[in-house]
């Protein structure tokens, strides 16, 4: 902590340089990779040069194929996430607030949780075929558990002293939830959110590689059929960027809602 603070104090005039530091390592990797390919150290049949990958991306972009596939994958990811996330959040709230609900459903959910959801792919294909609902189902199922578990944990670990304080000051159940329980559970809910975002991409890519007729995963599989390694690498890089984007979005949301938290305070 103190080291970070010191560096902030010593370089207050370089906020732009500060923002660039995290990108030094990825850029260096791309540079070394390009050099290795150009000098022939790595064969183009094993790993195409970054410039070739960029070229392949440019071609796909011009044909409209890239944008369409990214959009399809993005749509599947967000709809699946919204469905699974809201169900997980509701169960987390219900089981955190009500003992009856917890007794009724928690054991079942814990059993289901221990089934790797990707193991359901054969069954899901039999049920839904290879259309959209199969992908949405898998993403929703994968996202459900981290959100559920962390919401439940957040609500369970609310400081009982604060709840007692709320009661003394005459808060109703609704006010107690809004002013004490929910804000207190929020940091834990965000942990669940970020786990869920990771699982969301993982599930979607696996589902799209196995059973799909569009999307990024499908694009990568098609490229493999035709030995287009540059497109395969392009797909992988896009996954990395999309993952980073989702993570940045959740971090921004965290900073916005958790500004009270000492870990998010700017000095």
């Amino acid at each position, binding site marked *: 902590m103190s080291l970070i603070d010191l560096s902030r104090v010593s370089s207050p005039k370089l906020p732009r340089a500060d923002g660039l530091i995290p990108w030094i390592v990825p850029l260096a990797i791309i540079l070394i990779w390009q050099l290795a390919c150009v000098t022939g150290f790595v064969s183009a049949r094993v790993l195409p040069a970054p410039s070739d990958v960029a070229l392949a991306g440019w071609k796909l972009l011009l044909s409209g194929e890239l944008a369409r596939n990214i959009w399809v994958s993005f749509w599947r990811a967000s709809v699946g996430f919204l469905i699974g996330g809201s169900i997980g959040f509701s169960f987390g709230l219900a089981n955190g607030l009500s003992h009856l609900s917890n007794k009724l459903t928690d054991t079942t959910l814990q059993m289901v949780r221990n089934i790797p959801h990707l193991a359901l792919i054969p069954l899901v294909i039999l049920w839904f075929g290879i259309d959209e609902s199969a992908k949405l189902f898998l993403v929703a199922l994968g996202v459900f558990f981290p959100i559920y578990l962390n919401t439940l944990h957040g609500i369970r670990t609310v400081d009982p002293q604060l709840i007692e*304080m709320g009661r003394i000051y*005459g808060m109703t159940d609704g006010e107690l939830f809004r002013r004490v329980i929910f804000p207190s559970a929020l940091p834990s809910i965000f942990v669940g959110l970020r786990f869920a975002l990771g699982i969301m991409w993982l599930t979607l890519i696996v589902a799209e590689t196995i059973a799909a007729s569009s999307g990024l995963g499908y694009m990568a599989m098609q490229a493999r059929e035709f030995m287009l390694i540059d497109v395969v690498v392009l797909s992988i890089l896009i996954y990395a960027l999309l993952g980073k984007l989702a993570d940045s979005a959740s971090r921004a949301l965290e900073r916005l809602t958790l500004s*009270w938290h000492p870990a998010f305070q700017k000095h």
Partner: protein
Amino acid sequence: MQEALRFLSPGAVPVHRADFVERARLLRRSPEAQARGLSLTIRGLHKSFGDNEVLRGIDLHILAGQSVAIVGRSGCGKSTLLRLIAGLETITSGTISLGEDARPEDIRVMFQEPRLLPWARVLSNVEVGLGRERNSPDAQARAESALVEVGLADKRSQWPAVLSGGQKQRVALARALVSQPRVLAFDEPLGALDALTRISMQRLLERVWHDQGFTAILVTHDVAEAVALADRVLVIEDGRIAEDFSVDIPRPRQRGSAELAALEGAILKNLLEGTEDTSDL
């Protein structure tokens, strides 16, 4: 005089000094403050947790606007008594009466921990103390004046996390004061503070008690603090009131004076007498 004597109820433990001395002292306050405090009568109070009987018959009468300290060893039941008065526990048997017109907002508690909401700014934390009136249009103005009272008006838009321990406790005091309570119960409110902060907090507590005229009940393990702040010190032992000292020393009290030290010594001696083995004190 006649009126003062009426406060001596038959079941109460007798107070060493005549009550009119206390009444006379309280008369020096503003008339508004005088009328605010509630008197408190406890009769035959028992409290058990399972088989463990914590309070074994407490009879007590506290005058309106009086400041009473409750001292005792840890586990003697002093905090339980306070929590029963504040309505945080259910009574096993006996009665606690605060007068017929007492409302839940009239009694407020301050704990050893400030118990502030970390996600609410200082001013919102104080507004919590208004109870059901926190949505009224003057809520903010009242919270601000409570913050002025504890000397933290400039911290109104800070997060609690950036305040020091003493400042947090002052915000908690402002939150307790904002609804203008008629009884204020303190459960070791200064227990977690360093020595210098403690002394300035004691002065602050004494001042707001004097200005606002609520009935103050202070549970503490610090006998010096009890004699510095209270009109009356109760020693609790084995779930009963073992001793009832009247602190008849005029305010403002000189910290470290011989009178206070003598009384403190007497109370400590009384506390230590209970057992042969003093190592567990």
